[in-house]
């Protein structure tokens, strides 16, 4: 059954991808990218990766599309025809493809339970998570404790992207006069989206928080939650315009969220060191190591959520704050 699904979805993926590359209208490409992302996410879900599917949905279909669109609004929507370089590209691509296909034949079949990946490290996680962490979602356990250091790194990748976009787009942190002069935006003239959106926003936020705090029990966690909550705020700013959105969540607060989130994660680790453990060894925080780990994980997941949410918002606003008018005079 799974295989049938998978084949169906995968074929659609390929078709979509071809369409994305073929289309000369960037706008269409971006919209198709969102389909691509949805398909990918469904595919992940079919392949038993619920957490990843949720992330891909929230990040890929939601945020990425929005950021792409906001960038498109500032640049161009039409790709100019250009045929140079195809030969080389095809050669390079062909070589790489044959390399990968060559590799395929010794790979374990999809779903093969005897594959090496299922024999070595992973069983430890599956066997011990309940005992060592006290909650069922193994992905969250690996993410936040066994490989918590990776996650820390990832938070800082997001942080880097955030400051990078702010730096490159030279968006001031804090509300400077330059950014208030923007002409009115938003969909406030569209009654239906506005009203529905206003109803929806709190529920998205609540759902995001739910995802945030149930990461230990079901698919979810800081990343997904951060992305979902950010989506809520983005929806709000789409509806009400930049200014209103910035009034509700000022730039400083966005950046503050990123910084606090990142620091929160880091400080928990440092606290563990101070308490006599290794970095990010939550078990030393309290007497009962299982409870201690749970508390530690809740805190760091909150940090992750804050950081991702703040970063996505900052990035979005950095793009959104540059109107097309600014573009023209800066040339």
């Amino acid at each position, binding site marked *: 059954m799974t295989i049938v699904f998978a084949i169906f979805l995968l074929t659609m993926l390929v078709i979509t991808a071809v369409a994305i590359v073929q289309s000369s209208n960037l706008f269409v490409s971006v919209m198709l990218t969102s389909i691509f992302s949805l398909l990918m996410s469904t595919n992940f879900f079919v392949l038993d990766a619920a957490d990843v599917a949720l992330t891909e949905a929230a990040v890929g279909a939601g945020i990425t599309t929005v950021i792409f669109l906001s960038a498109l609004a500032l640049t161009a929507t039409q790709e100019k025809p250009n045929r140079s370089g195809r030969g080389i590209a095809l050669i390079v691509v062909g070589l790489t493809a044959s390399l990968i296909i060559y590799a395929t034949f010794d790979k374990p079949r999809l779903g093969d339970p005897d594959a090496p990946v299922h024999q070595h490290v992973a069983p430890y996680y599956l066997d011990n998570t309940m005992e060592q962490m006290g909650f069922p979602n193994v992905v969250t356990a690996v993410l936040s404790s066994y490989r918590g250091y990776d996650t820390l790194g990832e938070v800082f990748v997001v942080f880097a992207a955030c400051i990078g976009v702010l730096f490159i787009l030279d968006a001031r942190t804090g509300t400077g006069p330059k950014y208030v002069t923007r002409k009115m935006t938003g969909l406030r003239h569209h009654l239906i989206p506005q009203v529905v959106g206003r109803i929806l926003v709190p529920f998205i936020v609540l759902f995001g928080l739910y995802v945030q705090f149930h990461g230990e029990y079901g698919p979810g966690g800081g990343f997904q939650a951060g992305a*979902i909550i950010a*989506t809520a705020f983005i929806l709000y700013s789409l509806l009400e315009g930049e200014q209103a959105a910035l009034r509700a969540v000022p730039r400083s607060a966005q950046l503050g969220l990123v910084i606090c989130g990142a620091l929160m994660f880091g400080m928990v680790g440092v606290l563990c060191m101070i308490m006599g453990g290794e970095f990010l060894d939550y078990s030393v925080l309290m007497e009962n190591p299982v409870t201690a780990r749970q508390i530690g994980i809740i805190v760091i997941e909150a940090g992750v959520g804050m950081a991702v949410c703040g970063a996505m918002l900052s990035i979005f606003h950095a793009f959104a704050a540059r109107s097309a008018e600014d573009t023209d005079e800066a040339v």
Partner: protein
Amino acid sequence: MIFAGVSCAILVTMVLAIARAIKGPTVYDRLLAVNMFGTKTALLLAVIAFLFGRADFLDLALAYALINLVGVLAVLEFFQNRIDANGDASGD
């Protein structure tokens, strides 16, 4: 088994939607297809969650239901006056 049938139906519709998205001819047709595709995905996820017997994964479908709107609205916000400029012409 009924869910398998349902999911197949949804999959087929998704294929049809993609066909429309690729065919166009206008940007709005594509957008419509994309939007439709999104809601179908939410449906599909809910159905698959049932099919696999893990109803607790409905969260995913919920997330889709909530997020799907944002993309379409973003299109509106950023291209309120721009699509007509070069959008319609590009029915490739």
